């Protein structure tokens, strides 16, 4: 997202607490589908969502210990991306060239960020806010921004103080473009804000934006 002359490649891909140890979920960065997973000891990784063997989506796989296994033939990749076992050939040591393709990922303030390998700038700061929830909208980021003129653009999304559901709240909406004109909003709010009220306000907002888009 380009904002005010500053360029960052970081795109929010979820809230840390939604990707617990032992879980893999789909993600997306600049049109590239991802598999985002956390090992048993808590190591977080973001990889292209494609197993090098026969192209199965890794986000459909499963985490065992410190590895992510593909659901098709069970090839297992360690946190370094290297394939470390091929179940059809248990005695074979997989060649080092077989590896999952990694993107950069980082976590700060309860948010999971993803960027192209080795090309990321500083992480967008959302310090002082608390993660609320993620929700998907049938709308583009620009349409969401237009619906919330009280928020300003910053690297990673929109933020500011707005009235939502009749309550004033410090809102931060991290925007992630998905496929087919959808956008995922990762919302954070002020520590004093009522999370239930803000959450309900976001659902109302979604309804009104989607109706606007459909009209």
């Amino acid at each position: 997202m380009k904002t005010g002359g500053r360029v960052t490649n970081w795109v929010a891909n979820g809230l840390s607490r939604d990707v617990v140890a032992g879980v893999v979920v789909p993600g997306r960065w600049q049109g590239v589908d991802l598999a985002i997973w956390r090992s048993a000891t808590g190591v977080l990784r973001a990889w292209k969502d494609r197993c090098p063997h026969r192209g199965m989506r890794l986000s459909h796989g499963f985490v065992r210990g410190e590895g992510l296994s593909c659901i098709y033939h069970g090839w297992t990749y360690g946190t370094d991306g290297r394939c470390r076992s091929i179940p059809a050939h248990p005695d074979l040591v997989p060649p080092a060239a077989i590896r999952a393709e990694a993107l950069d990922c980082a976590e700060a303030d309860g948010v999971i960020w993803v960027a192209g390998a080795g090309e990321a700038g500083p992480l967008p700061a959302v310090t002082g806010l608390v993660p609320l929830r993620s929700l998907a909208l049938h709308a583009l980021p620009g349409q969401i921004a237009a619906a919330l003129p009280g928020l300003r653009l910053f690297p990673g999304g929109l933020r500011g103080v707005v009235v939502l559901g009749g309550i004033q709240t410090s809102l931060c909406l991290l925007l992630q473009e998905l496929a087919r004109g959808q956008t995922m909003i990762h919302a954070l709010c002020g520590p004093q804000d009522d999370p239930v009220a803000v959450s309900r306000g976001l659902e109302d907002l979604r309804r009104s934006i989607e109706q606007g888009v459909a009209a």
Partner: protein
Amino acid sequence: MIPQAVQDCWYPLAMAALTGPYPGRATQLLGQPIRVFRDAAGTIRVQGDAGADLPVILRFGHVWACPGTPQRDLFTIPEADHPGRRLVDCGVVRVKCSPLRAVENFLDIAHFPFVHTDILGAEPHTEVGRYEVHIREDTDEVWATKVRFHQPQAAMSAEGGIETEYMYRVPAPTAAVLYKTCPARPGDWDVIGIFVQPLTEELCDVWPWMALYDDVTPQAALIQFQQMIFLQDRSILENQIPRLLPLDPGMEIPTQADLTSVAYRRWLKRKGLTYGAQMVAA
């Protein structure tokens, strides 16, 4: 646009027994609208949009048609005619994938423990031993033989784990037949086929079909078993990237367990059967 070699093949379009009078089944073949129906005389006919009749063969309980000029007869499965076998039509499964990916998946055993867990395979019995693959010169078919795999529940009539032996056969670009040890009759083979109808390059109807020595299991249970297996396969097939089958090496990484897949891809490429395939690594 569509290679002549592709047009000249036979493709399954419907179950013969379920084909009714005009308008019958309106479907697609190689991206073109097509109709399968029974005319006033009771003859099953296949017509394209312009109303022209396509050559038709009724075999294995299915209606087959050729959109081009057939260069050879449709393959046969002699074992299917042996007395005592039950022929089971298993209906149809619509899959959003390349028809070639659907066939390739059917030729694959290494996925059994992970996709058909505790049915066709189970950890830790994941090893795929060496097997043989060749092209039969006389019939120009891909064959894999001496394929052995540990199977927790090989068929409806099997109880407990057994080492099952398989043979795989690709007699047409979108059809595959497997022969597997028959639990009820050691020395004989159960025969299971999939006939794949290419609606488009990324959409197909899969018609599973069986010829079994099993006169115990109710028909409904047999069909349900096969449907369950194919629904598990579908969750894979609709999530492979790229959607088209890559025929050039480099895009994917085959191992020894993938020898049948490698032979199938080479065979398709050599014969120019590229509908549903991609030639250059994207």
